[in-house]
C-alpha cells in the first residue's frame, strides 16, 4: 500500500520525512517526486551513491585494457621503427589516456542509468504520482499497522492532499 501526499513547501516536506522516519518507516520506503530537483537538507533523505567509485573503476578497467591491447598489438604487428623501440611509450600513453576517459564516461553514464532506476525493470503496479509544477509529492510505502499513523503524520506536517493507493 502507498500513501501519496502533496507538499507545496519544502520545510513541511522535510518535517514529514523526519517524522515518518521516527515512526519506523525507512528512507527506502519513501520517494519524493518533483518537476525540478529538490535539495533536501543533509540527513533528511540521503541517497548514498557509488557513482564516483564506479567511474574510477571504469576508467582503470578501460585504460588498462587499452594499454594491454596496444602493447600486444605493437608486439604482434611489428613496424619498422628505424632503431626506435617497438613499443611506443608516448603513443600508447596518449591512446590509453583517451581510453581511460572513455571508460570513465561510459561507466558514469551506465551507473547513472542503474542508480536512477531508469535501466531497471519496474513494477508497473507501483503508483507514480502526477506532479504539478511547484508541487512535491511524497510517496510512502507502508503496511497496515503503520498506515493510520503515517497518514496522521503527513496530515499534521501540512500535506495539501493525501491519497491512498493499493497495490494490485
Amino acid at each position, binding site marked *: 500500500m502507498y500513501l501519496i501526499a502533496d507538499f507545496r513547501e519544502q520545510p513541511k516536506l522535510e518535517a514529514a520525512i523526519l517524522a515518518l522516519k521516527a515512526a519506523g518507516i525507512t528512507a527506502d520506503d519513501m520517494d519524493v517526486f518533483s518537476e525540478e530537483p529538490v535539495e533536501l537538507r543533509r540527513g533528511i533523505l540521503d541517497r548514498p551513491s557509488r557513482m564516483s567509485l564506479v567511474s574510477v573503476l571504469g576508467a582503470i578497467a578501460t585504460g588498462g585494457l587499452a594499454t594491454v591491447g596496444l602493447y600486444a598489438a605493437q608486439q604482434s604487428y611489428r613496424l619498422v621503427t628505424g632503431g626506435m623501440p617497438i613499443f611506443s611509450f608516448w603513443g600508447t600513453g596518449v591512446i590509453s589516456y*583517451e581510453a581511460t576517459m572513455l571508460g570513465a564516461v561510459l561507466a558514469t553514464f551506465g551507473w547513472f542509468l542503474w542508480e536512477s532506476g531508469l535501466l531497471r525493470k519496474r513494477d508497473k503496479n507501483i503508483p507514480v504520482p502526477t506532479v504539478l509544477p511547484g508541487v512535491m509529492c511524497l510517496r510512502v510505502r507502508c503496511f497496515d499497522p503503520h498506515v493510520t499513523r503515517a497518514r496522521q503524520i503527513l496530515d499534521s506536517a501540512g500535506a495539501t492532499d493525501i491519497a491512498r493507493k493499493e497495490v494490485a
Partner: protein
Amino acid sequence: MAASVPELLPYAKIREDLFRPLSSGSSRYWITVFAALAVVVLGMAAWGIQVRDGMGVTGLNRPVFWGFYIVDFVFWIGISHAGTLISAILRLTDAAWRKPVTRAAEAITVFCLMIGGMFPIIHLGRSWLFFWLIPYPNPRMLWPNFRSPLLWDLVAILTYVTGSVIYLYLPLIPDMAQLAEHNVPWRRKLYRILSLGWTGSDREWHALERAMKLMACIILAVAVSVHTVVSWDFAMSIAPMWHSTIFGPYFVSGAIFSGIAALLLVLGILRRALGLELYLTKHHFDNLSKLLLLMSLLWFYFTFAEYQTVWYGNEPSEMAVFAGRIRGLYAPYFWIMVVCNFVVPFVLLGIRKLRTISTAMISSVCVIIGMWLERYIIVVPTLGNPRMNTASGVYTATWIEFAITAATFAGMIVLYLLFSKLFPIIAVWEFKPHAVEED
C-alpha cells in the same frame, strides 16, 4: 525590474515560454532551413565530384597536401570547445548565470564535432576506406601506426564525441519527460523513448546531479586533451613554425576563444529568433563578452610569444614562413586575423560603453573569421615553404573546397535549427523561481 530576471518568473510561465518554440514554426524559419539545405546539397555534390574524379579536383598539390579540409577540421574541432568546456566550467563553479547558456553551448559541441569529424574522411580522398583509420588486424597487415598523431586524433575525437553526446543528453531527460505528453503523436513517442520513463523521483534527480558533476570533470580533461592532440598533428613534425612547445596551450586557448565567439553568436540569434529576451539577458552577454575579451588577450599573448621567438631565433627556414605570413603572400590574411581576433574585440568589448549585445555579436563574427584565418595561416604557409627551399609551392583552393566548406557552415545552421525545434534550447528544469538572483 523584477520581470527581467528569469529566476523570479513563475515556473509555469518559464515552461510555457521555453516549450513554445517547439510547436511554432514561422515561414522565415523554414526558408532559412531550406536555403541552408540547398548549400549543403551543393557541398555534397562537390564532394561527389571529388570522390568520382579524385583529389585532383582540389587545389591540393605538391608540397601543400593539407589545405581547406585540415583548416576546416581544426577550426570546427576548436569551435566545439564552446560547449562542453564552457558548460563544464560554469557548472563546476556553480555560476548561476550559466542556466540559459549551457544547453545551447553543449549542442554546439556535438554538431561541431560531427562536422569537424567528417573532414579527415573527406580529406582521405578514398573516403570509402575510412575504416582503415580504426586499428584492427587484417590480412594485408595494415596495422595503423600508434606513433601517428592522426590515430591519436581519431581516438581523442571518438572519446570527445561520446562524452559530449552523453553530456548533452543527460540534462535533456527531465525536459523530455515533461514533453512526453506532447499533443503531436510522433513527438510524444520520441520524447517517451528518449526520456527512458523518467518520473522525477528524488533518486533520479540525485543520480542526474551526481552524473552531471562527474561528467563535467571528465569532459574538462577530455576537451583539453583533444585540442592538444590536434595541435600535435603539427607540432610533432619538424616543420618550420609548427615544431613548437606552446602549440598545445596555444591551440586550446584558441579553441576556447573561437568557441565563446560561436556561443555568443548562436545565443544572439536564438534570442531574437525564439523571443528569449527574458531568459538571455544583457547580463549573460556581458559575462560572455568579458570571457571573450579575456581570451582575445590570451590569444594575442600566445601569438606574440610564438612569433617573437621565431623572429629572434632568425633561423632561415623558419624565417621564410615568418616572412610569408607577415609581409609576403599570406600577409593580408595575417593582418585581417590580427584585426579580427584582437583589435575589434579589444575596442568593442574592452571599452565598457561600447559593450552591448550588438557589439558582442559583431566581435563574435570577427573572431570566427579571424580564427578560421589563423588555422589557414598555420597550415598552408608552412607546407608551402618546407625546409628544402627548392620544394616550395603555392596553394589555391578550388570551388570544390569552397563549396564543401560553405556546406559545413550551412550544415551547422540546419542541425541547430532542427535541434531548436525538437528540444528546448534552454534547460527548463534548471530554472527555479528564486527569491533573489543567485549571482
